[in-house]
């Protein structure tokens, strides 16, 4: 089980409170997490990554276990602590004005 923490605006859009819990069918990678997230919450499609290119939106970051995973390839295995649900996968909106 993977725990995902969404930015507040995406929690509102997905109509969820707190963390989202996802079961993955295969290895835990950023791409697999996003696939499972978008399948469970279709309203999030296009808000984290481009629907066609799958490129991460520029002002979002992926953090886990104190590390910035944003620039890792999308099929990079996530840390064991994330894969087991001990630590959450954080989707974070960049600090920017307004």
């Amino acid at each position, binding site marked *: 089980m993977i725990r995902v923490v969404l930015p507040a*605006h995406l929690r509102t859009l997905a109509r969820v409170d707190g963390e989202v819990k996802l079961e993955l069918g295969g290895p835990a990678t950023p791409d697999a997490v996003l696939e499972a997230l978008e399948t469970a919450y279709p309203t999030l*499609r296009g808000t984290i990554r481009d629907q066609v290119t799958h490129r991460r939106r520029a002002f979002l970051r992926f953090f886990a276990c104190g590390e910035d995973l944003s620039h890792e390839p999308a099929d990079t295995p996530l840390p064991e602590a994330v894969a087991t649900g001990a630590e959450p996968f954080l989707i974070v909106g960049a600090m920017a004005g307004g």
Partner: protein
Amino acid sequence: MSGIRLLVGTRKGGFVLTADGTRERWDVSGPHFGGWELYHLKGSPADPNRIYASQSSGWFGQVIQRSSDGGKTWETMGNKFEYEGAVGTHLWYDGTQRPWEFARVWHLEPSLTDPDTVYAGIQDAALFRSKDGGQTWQELAGLRTHKSAPVWQPGAGGMCLHTILLDPSHPGRIFIAISAAGTFRSDDGGTTWRPMNRGLRSEQIPDPTAEVGHCVHRIAMHRARPNVLFMQKHWDVMRSDDAGESWREVSGNLPTDFGFPIDVHAHEPETIYVVPIKSDSEHYPPDGKLRVYRSRSGGQEWEALTKGLPQAHCYVNVLRDAMAVDTLDPCGVYFGTTGGQVYGSSNGGDSWTPIVRDLPSVVSVEAQTLP
């Protein structure tokens, strides 16, 4: 008793303002989608409780919302705007060619007859249509693949398709406007397009009378006389009496002919409204006086409408989609400002009252006249 519903898009959410037919007391609901930019909300003429909204954010991109109960509740619809076929390139600010890239939906135009059909004007400029109530979107690619497209270029706000006019008398006839390409018309439901810019003159481009490249800010028509179009261009207020085939300037005695919105009185096809702005580098009213100008002669002769509007120290702007009229008699006229005020007139512009004063910066205003 009939009523009015104003759909107000702002930089930080959407608002729904409602009043009965007297238009004296207004209820304000919102923000809907607080914190997001609501570029445009518009109701279906065929079902006024069906409202479409363009919700976007620099962080999270584009979302489309739909309401079936007049804006009380919303459901998230499809947001996949994928250009059809080869994407191609357009002119970029530095003179290079740049691939088309979706940024946001500027304008949503519901069909005149079918609540499930809605058009979307997007940045980078293209026209999309949904026939399933906003669940899926298909590009009407004949516009973006027009032979002139490689020389279209973005205005300061991006290369946006911001105006969509559906001709009620000629099914299949659509007018659109793009900054900075100009006006185009389709007579076959959006399959093929022709530039409609003859008579425009723009000193800011190498050939001032070029077929395309003009920064059209807004066009408007009266439903009963769709062959007559009015245009607020970057500079110049223009008029066409032949469905866009040719244009002539009608700026007349305006204090400045720069501006963004233009609209037509609901019952008087020759009565039009603009909000003159000082210049393209000073986006505020001249002399710090917020004045709507009205022409009762379809242009050339204009009168300042000032009663109830600030006449000192006012430096707001009124954006292209931020003016609307209702269809009551007398006609109501409404506009929103970048300072967050929404002003209304229930007498065709003779006098104005602030409906709300402190919203986020207003991007769009649409008026619905309810039975």
